[in-house]
């Protein structure tokens, strides 16, 4: 690979190689405050390469490669090379992670205890995590919760927060422009803009936290909160995990302990202000 960037996000080291300079330059800017992989050895490698040799210069199209690939992934235009890098990093984690039980969830921390926000795509995990991080919570991650089966602790994975569509303007209104990446229009997920986690999130990225509350947010409904039974939490979290089956017995032990030890609630919210209020109320009542 002609251009290479390395970064450590929480306990995970990545090496991103690219046929083009542009995506690497954007990663260098946005991940400027992050450490490098420990001992210089990355856990996962992502490659951004041209779909065909001439596509490096003629209507450049970015293919995503790495240790783990989705064979039918479509190439992205070079203007979305940053998104391709992020998708590649997520893919390596989702398919290759074997140390931590991975839950598709956002995590924020306060007073040393972690709040897990999980739910289907579009439930508002990234938006809520970003907004909570602007209201006194430490951002541990907006995409993956890393549950250590040996300790029951959640480890931070504070990658760039991926804001989508309406949440771009909502969050952009509250943060300085230098914490935002380029506006990526017309991606497979709509409009995307990345948010750089704040200094507190990066400074504490190596500090794990014990899970204290699991919330299942749903956007688009009148405000409501209900308890979620352990059995339902178990099923929803196995569905939210990318590597539950691969983790075998360690995954079973970690997940049953989490489900039995941590209260869970579903919150429905019509707008972000309501969501913040519901989260704070659920946290206070846990």
């Amino acid at each position: 690979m002609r251009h290479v960037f390395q970064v450590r996000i929480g306990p995970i080291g990545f090496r991103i190689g690219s046929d083009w300079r542009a995506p690497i330059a954007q990663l260098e800017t946005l991940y400027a405050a992050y450490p490098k992989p420990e001992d210089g050895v990355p856990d996962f490698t992502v490659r951004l390469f041209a779909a065909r040799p001439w596509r490096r210069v003629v209507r450049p199209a970015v293919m995503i490669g790495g240790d783990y690939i989705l064979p039918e992934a479509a190439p992205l235009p070079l203007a979305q090379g940053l998104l391709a890098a992020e998708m590649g990093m997520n893919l390596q984690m989702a398919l290759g992670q074997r140390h931590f039980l991975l839950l598709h969830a956002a995590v924020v921390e306060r007073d040393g205890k972690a709040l897990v926000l999980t739910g289907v795509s579009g439930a508002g995990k990234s938006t809520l995590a970003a907004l909570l991080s602007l209201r006194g919570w430490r951002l541990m991650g907006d995409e993956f919760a890393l549950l250590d089966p040996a300790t029951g602790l959640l480890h931070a994975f504070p990658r760039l927060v991926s804001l989508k569509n309406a949440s771009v303007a909502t969050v952009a209104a509250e943060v300085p422009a230098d914490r935002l990446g380029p506006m990526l229009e017309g991606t497979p997920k709509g409009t995307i803009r990345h948010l750089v986690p704040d200094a507190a999130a990066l400074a504490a990225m190596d500090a794990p936290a014990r899970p204290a509350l699991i919330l299942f947010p749903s956007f688009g409904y009148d405000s409501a909160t209900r308890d979620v039974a352990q059995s339902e939490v178990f099923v929803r979290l196995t569905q939210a995990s990318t590597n539950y089956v691969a983790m075998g017995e360690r995954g079973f032990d970690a997940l049953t302990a989490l489900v039995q030890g941590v209260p869970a609630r579903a919150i429905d919210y019509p707008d972000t202000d309501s969501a913040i209020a519901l989260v704070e109320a659920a946290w206070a009542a846990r």
Partner: protein
Amino acid sequence: MNDSRGDIVYRMARPETLKIVHLDSFTAVFHRASGITHLVTSPVPEILAALGEAGMTRADLMARLSVDYVLGDAEEGSLDARLEELVATGLVAVA
């Protein structure tokens, strides 16, 4: 009762091959041999508990369960079906 199966002894899979965690409305059973998590509800946990390591015939199992539960013909048919499913998944062994 099916006489051809009368002598068959059903046993819970060896305890070291199972992990059983009771959640509120169902029980999660991790089967080490296959790596599969089974989510089961009554009467499966009761069947596994009754069979135990020693095992018993179908008739003994029905007799044991009828001590704690009211079993009609429909329930016995359902128990038969669950028992066969448990054998198929490896959670119950036959001898």
